[in-house]
């Protein structure tokens, strides 16, 4: 058995699957059921001065036959009295000592922060997550993403928390910023013990076109909310990777954003996250999804020879490079498996209308063919093909040296031209 034990900034949990601070972690009763289902940790629904919510609160993007590929909410932090939340943290921690319970906090003044941090520690929380990310409702009051978007404020409040805390302080970052490195570095200057990202992306989920009203609607009106769910995963992966390869970032990262399966979690880990946090997929399917996340990841690790999570963490980070560092002479061409092809010709349409006009049709068969001399290996045909493994991208041994844009530009500056790109010289195609 591979070991799924997660060690995150000194917080140990049975596995790297934590519930993110959100409706699934609203109460102790929910979190205990989640732990029974297999979740390794939970970040409590953000505690602060209790708020009043509106109805409705959620919206979603459905695509084709798939529901909830994206999700947004205009719900605020916990609407429950702070003492109830802290009492329940105590109860949960007492019954589930091996699971990670993190108190998510969001208040304004230094006194309030100090009070909340003390009460969290007294309740037995394993760590604090400072919500500097919420992009709706709270930011207008100077909290949430309003903090995350102002590096100086982010640094200052982090410093307060670190000074007052005896347990790890995690700073949850907003993606609603030009460069994620800025708030991250600010938090680290403030002494943060870990970072978590991404919080939700500022969004309007859609418009009811028959009522000309944005969604979700609250008595004929709406407001911008926070976008999350499977559709945001690529954005989250990028931001996690940006921090993971930032030499100034020397603390663990908790990856958040569209995690639904064990594969998603492995992707985050390989790009540098130490654990993951999950919300939307639980809102869609419930706590039970963690069972397959655990089994799938354990099986994957065993089959791939990873004994511990640490063996996987950051494996892909060094391979995340700048465009100018990529090899201009790496060459792929598309190959269509004629036996597998069902003749839908979507590859032809896509190539013809949106790529390089190199997939052609023939008389007497619906199977298209690739003009390998013209194919630029863009992947579009493979992406649109509905048949598994029908179109593959074959590597061409063109005998050319590795040339990056940086090499090419440097040579140009010297007055030389390097062979680069597919049609610059004879290739080894038959």
């Amino acid at each position, binding site marked *: 058995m591979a070991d799924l034990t997660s060690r995150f900034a000194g917080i140990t949990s049975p596995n790297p699957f934590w519930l993110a601070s959100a409706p699934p972690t609203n109460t102790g009763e929910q979190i205990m059921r989640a732990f029974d289902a297999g979740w390794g940790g939970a970040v409590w629904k953000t505690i602060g001065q209790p708020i009043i919510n509106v109805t409705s609160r959620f919206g979603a993007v459905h695509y084709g036959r798939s529901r909830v590929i994206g999700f947004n909410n205009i719900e605020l932090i916990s609407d429950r009295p702070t003492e109830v939340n802290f009492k329940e943290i105590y109860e949960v921690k007492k019954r589930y000592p091996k699971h990670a319970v993190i108190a998510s906090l969001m208040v304004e003044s230094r006194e309030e922060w100090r009070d909340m941090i003390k009460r969290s520690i007294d309740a037995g929380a394993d760590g604090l997550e400072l919500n500097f990310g919420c992009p709706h409702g709270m930011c207008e009051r100077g909290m949430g993403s309003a903090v995350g978007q102002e590096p100086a404020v982010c640094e200052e409040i982090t410093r307060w928390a670190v000074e007052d805390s005896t347990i790890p302080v995690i700073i949850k970052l907003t993606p609603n910023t030009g460069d994620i490195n800025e708030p991250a570095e600010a938090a680290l200057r403030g002494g943060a013990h870990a970072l978590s990202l991404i919080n939700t992306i500022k969004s309007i989920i859609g418009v009811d076109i028959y009522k000309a009203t944005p969604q979700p609607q609250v008595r004929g009106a709406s407001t911008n909310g926070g976008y999350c769910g499977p559709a945001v995963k690529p954005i989250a992966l990028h931001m996690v990777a940006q921090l993971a390869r930032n030499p100034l970032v020397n603390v663990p990262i908790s990856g958040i954003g569209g995690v639904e399966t064990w594969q998603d979690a492995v992707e985050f880990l390989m790009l540098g996250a130490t654990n993951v946090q999950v919300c939307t997929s639980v809102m869609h399917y419930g706590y039970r999804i963690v069972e397959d996340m655990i089994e799938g990841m354990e099986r994957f690790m065993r089959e791939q020879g990873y004994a511990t999570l640490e063996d996987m963490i950051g494996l892909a980070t060094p391979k995340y490079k700048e465009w100018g560092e990529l090899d201009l002479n790496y060459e792929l061409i598309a190959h269509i498996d004629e036996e597998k092809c069902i*003749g839908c010709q*979507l590859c032809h349409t896509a190539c013809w209308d949106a790529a390089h006009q190199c997939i052609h049709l023939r008389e007497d068969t619906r199977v298209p063919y690739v003009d390998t001399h013209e194919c630029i290996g863009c992947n579009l045909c493979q992406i649109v093909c509905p*048949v598994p493994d029908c179109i593959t991208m074959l590597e061409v041994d063109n005998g050319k040296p590795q040339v990056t844009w940086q090499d090419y530009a440097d040579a140009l500056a010297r007055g030389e031209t390097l062979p680069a790109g597919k049609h610059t010289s004879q290739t080894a195609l038959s």
Partner: protein
Amino acid sequence: MTSNATPLEQAQSPWREIAESERLERELHDRKPQLSSGNAVAEANRCLYCHDAPCIKACPTGIDIPTFIRKIATGNLSGSARVILDANILGLSCARVCPTEVLCEGDCVYNHLDQPPIQIGKLQRVATEHAYARGERFFERGEPNGRRVALVGAGPASLACAHELARLGYLCTIFEKRDLPGGLNSTGVAPYKLHLEDSLRELEYILGIGGITLQTGVEVGGEVGLEALASDFDAVFIGFGLGEDGFMGVEGEDAAGVHGAVAFIERLKTEPGFSVAGVRSAAIIGGGNTAIDCVRELRGLGVPRVQMIYRRDEATMSGYAHEWTYAKAEGVQGVFHAQPLGFVVEAGQVRGVECARTRVEEGSGRLVVDAGEPFVVEADLVLLAIGQSKLGSLLADIEGIQLDRGRVVVDPATGQTGDPRFFAGGDCANGGKEVVNAAAEGKRAARGIHAWLDARG
């Protein structure tokens, strides 16, 4: 309201009376119920939206299927119906009666991916029913061009032809010998696919374009001669379908309980009060689609024992394999390699079909009847589904029209016959195919008439 409002409304009352009466077909319910809107959207979203899609090529009317399906997926059901009806104005009935298994759905690329094909017929039904329910019309009668066309027979071929001609600005008059128009859609299609009232609903929708006058109860060849039509009108379209059921010409065929299959189906679809109560055992002679329709209908009406008698084996039946599979699942039995010789009749009532065994002669492949002892398939109802007569002889007076085994020979591009004034389509020209073929051929003839008259000037 359109210019034909008066004749249409006059004609409607007898149809309505029949359509609303208690008829046996009402006991046969839809075997392929309409998809719910949620299921329709889900199914539409499965469509791959193929380039140059095979389903389009498999449709005799060339409906742009991926386009209409995509419109269902986007919630544009009216636009979807427009695409369907633009290609095939009989899209409502075709959605239900087409053998999609061997047409569009049979050619869906999903069949090569071990996945069920898109349910194209059911999606077409959702879209067309949506438009009908809202009374949406998409095509207007063309600017009148002063030309007039007579159409013989008010079945799918003539309706498709007349509608297309109306769009081009023609005035059309359809002559129908029955009181009930609609052709086989009204009198012949299996009730678990299409009921009479739906056929009439479609007919009224088609006539609603205007410029089409329907004269029922008028037999061309009788009071109105074809030559007379040809001189009164600029062109004549012949879409009168097939004739009477064929009989074997053996003793006992006139006994009570022996019927031609097509005539029998017409009665159960259109005759108020017609019943099969008391029938214990039925035998249908034939192996084509009419025979399979009959056995399925009789089982559906609760006849306890229904058998189909066919001369050859199961694999050589001309009826669709998928329909026969359904029939067997519904409890129909096949009696194969059986050649009916005559009938067992008691007191004027049929009691069985006397049959000889047949076999295929080795080498020659010929079917031969065994000399051995005949056997009896018991039945108190016997239907003959061994083909219908061809009506080509009605055209004997028109010298230029050529016939091929009773079928009217037409130019495959235009539907024009050997006498340029006459065009033809549907069963009388193709020998008996699907509604969708008739629709395609009717439309083809309309284009042919238009091109011919334009060229003639």
